[in-house]
């Protein structure tokens, strides 16, 4: 039995957590999110290289959040998701025990959010090489080529909202896409409506995205939709020097400003 199972078992036994959100064996060699509510389930939790999914979206899920306190097995992107959720008041200190597994495979139990910040202070977040490569490739294209690329992707979008549901930061009870007075974004999954939806989602994530890429992972039709918020996160890092999901007290880049913010296109 690994450290993660022991800690999960202890937290459940002492009642410090009612459920431990983690990873379990999934279909055919894959891993899946798993929920340990008792000793037996605690024993089934696993943690290994395959556990890259960001689980932070489960902490506010309606079927789970009433079970707070929760414990959650966390990789770096989950940690960042939790910190960002805390910045946006969706988690309070003490709601969640985070079981961070560091590069050495040690489990670091964070009961306070500040302890997560300490873990994150050691880390320089980087985007995946394949994402970087595709972003660079797109940047090198002409606008027309980029348009063709994205439009062909948008035609495939079926508006299943897996991207939204998988996102740790899409916690709104009413998503902008569901607002119908006015109907900002068409309900129909037509190309222009899909485009508007994905632009809106990326904009709403700008300054907030923790670059986990979960939206792209979730897409059933393989649209690299995570590139949009990640591209913006990278730009924001370059322009404003802010990185989301590293510190609780950070303010959102798009709801703050500096009088001497630079731009080069406003005449």
């Amino acid at each position: 039995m690994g450290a993660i199972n022991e800690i999960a078992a202890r937290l459940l036994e002492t009642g410090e957590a009612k459920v431990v959100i983690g990873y379990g064996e999934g279909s055919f060699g894959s891993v899946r999110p798993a929920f340990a509510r008792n000793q037996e389930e605690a024993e089934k939790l696993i943690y290994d290289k395959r556990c890259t999914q960001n689980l932070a979206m489960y902490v506010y899920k309606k079927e789970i959040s009433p079970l707070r306190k929760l414990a959650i097995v966390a990789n770096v992107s989950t940690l960042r998701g939790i910190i960002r959720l805390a910045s946006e008041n969706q988690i309070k200190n003490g709601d969640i025990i985070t079981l961070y597994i560091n590069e050495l495979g040690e489990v670091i139990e964070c009961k306070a959010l500040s302890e997560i910040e300490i873990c994150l202070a050691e880390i320089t977040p980087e985007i995946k090489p394949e994402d970087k490569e595709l972003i660079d490739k797109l940047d090198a294209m002409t606008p027309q080529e980029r348009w063709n690329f994205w439009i062909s992707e948008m035609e495939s979008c079926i508006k299943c909202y897996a991207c939204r549901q998988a996102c740790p930061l899409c916690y709104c009870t009413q998503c902008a896409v569901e607002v119908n007075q006015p109907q900002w974004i068409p309900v129909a999954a037509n190309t222009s409506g899909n485009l508007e939806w994905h632009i809106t989602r990326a904009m709403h994530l700008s300054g907030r995205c923790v670059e986990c890429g979960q939206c792209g992972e979730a897409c059933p039709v393989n649209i690299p939709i995570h590139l949009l918020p990640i591209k913006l996160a990278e730009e924001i890092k370059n322009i404003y020097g802010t990185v989301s999901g590293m510190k609780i007290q950070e303010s959102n880049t798009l709801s703050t400003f500096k009088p001497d913010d630079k731009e080069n296109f406003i005449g």
Partner: protein
Amino acid sequence: MSKIKKLSKESFPLLIKKISETQHVYGPVSQGKRISYQRISSADELASDFIIPDMSAKSFVFPKIEKLFSYTKNKDGVEVQDINLDNIPHRVVVGIRPCDAAGMESLKAIFSWDPSDPIFETRLKRTTFIGLACNQADDYCFCTSLGGSPGDTKGSDILLTKTDTGDYIAEILTSKGEKIVTLAPDLFQDVEGDLQKEKFLANVPKRFDNSDLQNKINAAFNTDVFDEYAMRCMGCSACAFVCPICACFDIQDETKGSKGQRVRLWDSCGAKLFTLHTSGHNPRETQGARWRQRLMHKFSYMPERLEVRGCVGCGRCSRRCPVDMNIAESLNQLIIDN
């Protein structure tokens, strides 16, 4: 009426070419990481070496956006323009997987149930399915557990099975299939004896025993088996949208100035807004109830009311689920538990 012919690997592209002269031809096309049914003009465009397209073929008969009628608003009121069913195109889908083709029967059951939906009926009537039997499968495939098979002819007008030589065994199954043959009769060779189609089919092991499935699943309704699903399922609509049978829909108006149209759009019982009343009351309040509805609808309610199952075991929903909600596994569990 099944007739067996042979279609050589050289004849196959010629057949596509011949059909494209008069009708739009569609088939699985690879596009980046994605394989989907797309319009093609030659057989070269068809994807090869894949298990199953990412999206099912249901959009040929139940597109993600279906115009129901259009209208023009003016100062005095509204002029309504009904759709013209004559505009619905004749299409041939080549390379549809047997599971997708089999799904057409379930879709037909839904849309033909009183009252019959003429838009759907016309689309189905005007689409010819040239199936391609599966010569490979993955762990997610479970058609055999639900009475289907990698070489199932149900729903196809012609079913092709690729042999080890690259030539095809062509089963001409319907009059629509016959019509295709008459377009290029020379390309189809007569055959003698048993071509042993089974030899060329993928092996899809049975995952569970489907006998008495309906009663077993009914018995699970009020058990806590759905609690874990309630937690894990994130409530997106991916499973429903990739499913060859899920036919739940929404009706919305799209407008552009004074013009408007009412459209039918894919919807999903997994979405929390699906059943939400404007009062705030939601009859299926939890994700567990919604996942249960998905299972119940496919394996209990549809068999009860429409005498068909809502699942052909294509495994798409499980393959595509971001949180690995595996439908075959769930069914297996329900069967074992009950």
